[in-house]
């Protein structure tokens, strides 16, 4: 089979010591960068880019891709251990991941995150390999109306995220949506809710919100008992996931991989919502949904896998068509072009060594990261031995550092602190904060997509129904909503009656 031949070619390039060494450096760098809240793969790749100028293209790309993957892996570490999301995509991992840590299952959580990420990464690379051109062609069909429909589906996901009253969740989502709308309106140029603070012109930013709402508020809630909290003394056996945990994770990992891949392929930043969708799905089909939020391993396995495969999925439009589907692929595109590679279908024909070397190296990168991360689980978990009284001081400093470095902006830090306080009160009042973050992420994208669609159609709302892909998705959304409303549980869920 030709693919096997090509793969062999790719691996022969990827497995040379030089390439491996650079892949390792990239992954290490990426993991470090990913662990820092706020600073993400974009910064990491930009930092290393000039360094790659003198290197041969395959090595350069391999190293940069390593940074990207590494950052994804690294983000889950802080999410699980300290409930600080490394970036928007790791928010869902915080919830059950940290809960597992509190129950002493930090090791397994980290391990499953790593394993899930690895499987997802590998499978999605295979998908990338086999399906790149046809998928890319379909991805191109996604215009603003389809995007809007997809995001509406994402909104629906909110409904499944709630662990308590639907009304409370709705409230959170609305707050999130409103917060997400802060900034200069794309279409008219009017500044909304910015109160003359220039830093708010581009919006509030998911990172400060997420770090504050999840990380800082957590510390505020736990600091009181810092003295009394028993220090964790994990034994070696505790580091390894139990058989049940492994079994419980298997299906979520596969589902997460699929979801992430499909969502990641869509050009644009929709891939962020893949972890949210995965979490919602797992919760919905689980036999014990009440376990979610308290350490359900499915809540870690699914989202983490979705994350990683969305990453690979995001590369498809880039490699197959030369279209970057987000900020990170855009930098990768620049990097490729600087090294004289013009991605697109002819890349496969004209420079098979680069194309297949890249694919092989993504696989290799995943292996490298697994090897890097699994033993580190022990190291990370032993961090938990530090009495919380010391630990939380450093975590706060870390939050400060991370949020500031994203945009060199103290305004971001103030936002994080503000949301930390908000999160504190919200959790006291038993509000689930995840929908808020999702709202912040979705609002600007959804509104822009809707208004772009209307601009395209000249104000005609039926554009959503007339286009096949968008129409189908919206019909699906409508069907799901109606189904939910009609089902018996509706009145209890809305809170109008007691169960």
């Amino acid at each position, binding site marked *: 089979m030709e693919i096997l031949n090509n793969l062999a070619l790719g691996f022969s390039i990827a497995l040379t010591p030089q390439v491996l060494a650079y892949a390792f450096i990239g992954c290490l760098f990426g993991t470090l960068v990913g662990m820092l809240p706020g600073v993400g793969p974009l910064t990491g790749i930009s930092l290393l880019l000039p360094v790659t100028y003198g290197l041969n293209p395959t090595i350069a790309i391999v190293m940069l891709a390593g940074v990207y993957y590494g950052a994804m892996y690294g983000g889950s570490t802080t999410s699980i251990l300290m409930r600080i999301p490394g970036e928007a995509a790791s928010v869902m991992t915080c919830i059950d991941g940290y809960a597992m840590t509190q129950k002493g299952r930090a090791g397994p959580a980290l391990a499953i995150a790593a394993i899930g990420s690895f499987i997802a990464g590998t499978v999605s690379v295979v998908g990338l390999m086999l399906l790149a051109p046809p998928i890319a062609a379909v991805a191109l069909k996604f215009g603003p109306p389809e995007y809007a429909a997809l995001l509406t589906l994402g909104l629906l996901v909110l409904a499944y995220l709630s662990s308590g009253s639907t009304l409370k969740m709705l409230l959170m989502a609305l707050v999130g949506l409103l917060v997400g709308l802060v900034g200069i309106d794309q279409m008219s140029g009017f500044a909304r809710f910015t109160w003359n603070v220039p830093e708010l012109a581009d919006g509030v930013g998911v990172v400060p919100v997420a770090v504050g709402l999840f990380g800082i508020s957590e510390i505020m809630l736990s*600091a009181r008992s810092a003295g009394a909290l028993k220090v964790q003394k994990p034994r070696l056996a505790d580091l390894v996931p139990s058989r049940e945990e492994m079994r419980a994770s298997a299906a979520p990992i596969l589902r997460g991989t699929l979801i992430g891949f499909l969502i990641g392929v869509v050009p644009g930043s929709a891939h962020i919502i893949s972890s949210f969708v995965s979490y919602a799905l797992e919760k919905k089909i689980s036999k014990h949904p009440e376990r979610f939020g308290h350490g359900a391993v499915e809540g870690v396995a699914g989202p983490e896998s979705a994350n990683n495969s969305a990453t690979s999925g995001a590369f498809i439009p880039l490699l197959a068509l030369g279209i970057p589907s987000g900020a990170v692929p855009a930098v990768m595109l620049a990097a490729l072009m600087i090294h004289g590679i013009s991605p697109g279908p002819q890349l496969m024909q004209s420079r098979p060594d680069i194309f297949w070397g890249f694919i092989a190296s993504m696989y290799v990168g995943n292996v490298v990261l697994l090897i890097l991360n699994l033993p580190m689980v022990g190291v990370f978990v032993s961090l938990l031995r530090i009495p919380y009284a*010391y630990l939380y001081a*450093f975590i706060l400093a870390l939050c400060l550092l991370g949020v500031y470095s994203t945009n060199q902006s103290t305004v971001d830090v103030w936002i994080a602190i503000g949301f930390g306080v908000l999160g504190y009160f919200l959790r*006291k009042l038993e509000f689930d904060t995840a929908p808020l973050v999702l709202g912040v992420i979705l609002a600007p994208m959804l509104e822009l997509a809707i208004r772009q669609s209307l601009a395209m159609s000249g104000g005609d709302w039926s554009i959503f129904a007339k286009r096949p892909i968008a129409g189908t998705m919206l019909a699906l959304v409508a069907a799901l909503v109606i189904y939910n409303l009609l089902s018996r549980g509706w009145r209890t869920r809305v809170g109008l009656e007691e169960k």
Partner: protein
Amino acid sequence: MPRLLAVLLIAAALLLMVQKSRPARPMDLSDARITAVIVLLLGAATFALERAGYRATVFVFLLVVLAAVERRPPWLSILLSGGFALGSFYLINTVLRVPLPVSRWGW
């Protein structure tokens, strides 16, 4: 568009209040004091960050939390705070070359 959302928000809030309330526990505010302290310290640190520079700010912040709030032994607090402030600065600013604020006097 935001007006629409704001209206929905208010409606939802009202609904929530109207709903038959379960016997609500009064909000447990026993940790309010330490939370307020944390917020104050974080605020001060944020304020100082670009004026006093990263290292000084983080050092003082950590020192206050460790020594004053948590009452850990002073020598240990100084050591840990200094170590973290300098270490993280080195890692992020020098190795990773992500700039961190440096005050006018170079620190």
